[in-house]
């Protein structure tokens, strides 16, 4: 496929790996912020091509994984209502809430439907005027335009039976939270290419400067990721810390203006609780007051639901880059995709799912470098 195959070229990958090897003189820890990159790294074995000193840690880059358990419980409570149709991306089906997941609610007769786009949920609302259709709007900035478009369309068409449960998160505040932690070990970031496709990368410039940490906007294919790593370690070796853009074919500094305008028309920044990172100010998106009628939490009075995270799942440490999945005592022992203890084991971009799929048989010590 055009714009995919050429970035999986093995010769190019080897060239980049050689260049990285020649560049690096000291150990560096880089964090990739996107779960799609995590999967690419583990699937193609990109970490195994790197010199010993370069360690990749996996960040909070999976929106499903950072969704706190109480939001899952809210979606479950909605799905259990007989008048409701709960629509969601497939990734959310198996994420454990404190008592149930959406798949088990569906098995017990709840009307839970997997959709490819939030616009599909709007269509379902139009076709089922006597039912209440809720879209579980999980995602980073990448997904916000689609969710905003769904709300705008429902508002225009006066669809009184459509609402969203907003579980939106924003990446820059989380990067700040990670860099501000005392035990932060991250020297450089590979920023999530598709988030920046929408938002551009101006927001990252003050972060790179303030924390003296290079940030390289990076794509998802092996060649992209290796080039992102090269650009990042070059800066580190030269003592520089700026924002660089590896993913120029899709990302500009300003981002997609029409998409940003749409997001701001429908949503405003709000405080958000992240699994593993706690509450971060202005790190979520809530519907603007003008669109409050489309807010499922308000419509169904769910605001009071609160829940504690499981104590056995160490996904908080994994999402902050402090541990890797196979360092979790439950990994592949009590926690697997069939019986997950935490979201990172079931989300298609979860780090634990990636390690389970591609690295199950390796000892943790074999991969921990640097």
């Amino acid at each position, binding site marked *: 496929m055009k714009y995919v195959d050429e970035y999986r070229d093995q010769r190019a990958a080897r060239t980049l790996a050689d260049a990285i090897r020649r560049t690096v003189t000291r150990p560096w820890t880089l964090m990739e912020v996107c779960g799609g990159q995590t999967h690419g790294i583990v699937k193609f074995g990109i970490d195994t091509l790197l010199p010993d000193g370069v360690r990749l840690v996996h960040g909070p*880059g999976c929106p499903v994984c950072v969704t706190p358990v109480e939001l899952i419980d809210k979606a479950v409570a909605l799905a259990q209502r007989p008048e409701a149709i709960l629509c969601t991306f497939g990734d959310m089906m198996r994420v454990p809430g404190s008592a149930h997941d959406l798949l088990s609610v569906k098995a017990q007769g709840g009307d839970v439907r997997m959709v490819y786009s939030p*616009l599909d949920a709007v269509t379902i609302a139009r076709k089922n005027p006597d039912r209440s259709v809720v879209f579980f709007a999980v995602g980073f900035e990448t997904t916000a335009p*689609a969710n905003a*478009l769904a709300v705008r369309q429902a508002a225009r068409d006066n669809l009184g039976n459509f609402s969203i449960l907003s579980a939106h998160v924003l990446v820059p505040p989380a990067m700040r939270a990670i860099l501000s932690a005392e035990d932060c070990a991250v020297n450089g970031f590979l920023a999530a290419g598709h988030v920046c496709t929408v938002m551009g990368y101006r927001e990252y410039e003050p972060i790179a400067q303030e924390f003296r940490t290079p940030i390289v906007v990076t794509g998802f294919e092996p060649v992209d990721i290796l080039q992102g790593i090269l650009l990042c370690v070059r800066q580190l070796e030269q003592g520089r810390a700026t924002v660089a853009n590896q993913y120029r074919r*899709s990302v500009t500094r300003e981002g997609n203006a029409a998409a940003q305008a749409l997001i701001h028309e429908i949503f405003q920044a709000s405080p958000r609780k992240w699994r593993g990172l706690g509450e971060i100010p202005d790190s979520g998106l809530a519907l603007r007051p003008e669109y409050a009628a489309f807010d499922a939490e308000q419509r169904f009075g769910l605001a009071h639901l609160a829940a504690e995270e499981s104590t056995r799942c160490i996904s908080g440490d994994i999402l902050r880059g402090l541990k890797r999945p196979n360092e979790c005592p439950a990994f592949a022992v009590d926690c697997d995709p069939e019986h997950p203890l935490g979201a990172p084991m079931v989300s298609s971009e979860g780090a634990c799912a990636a390690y389970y799929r591609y690295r199950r048989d390796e000892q943790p010590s074999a991969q921990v470098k640097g």
Partner: protein
Amino acid sequence: MCLAVPGEVLTIDESDPLLRQARVSFGGVVREVSLATLPEAQPGDFVLVHAGVGISVVDADEAAQLLEDLEQLAELESLEDGGA
């Protein structure tokens, strides 16, 4: 979650400007996609699509530049190998 796939715009239906619905081919598989946030996209462009919505037009020049940069890097590396 943030997966976005490049596809080629075949046709655009402007009858509902809010949606700017298009038919986009992903290696032969054709899907309906909204280009509401890509007012500049035209048939023949490659667009990145996420959750049914186009989020950027792939810049063909930049894409070619990256591959060129890689060629140069490969030459440089082979020179260094020769010298080592």
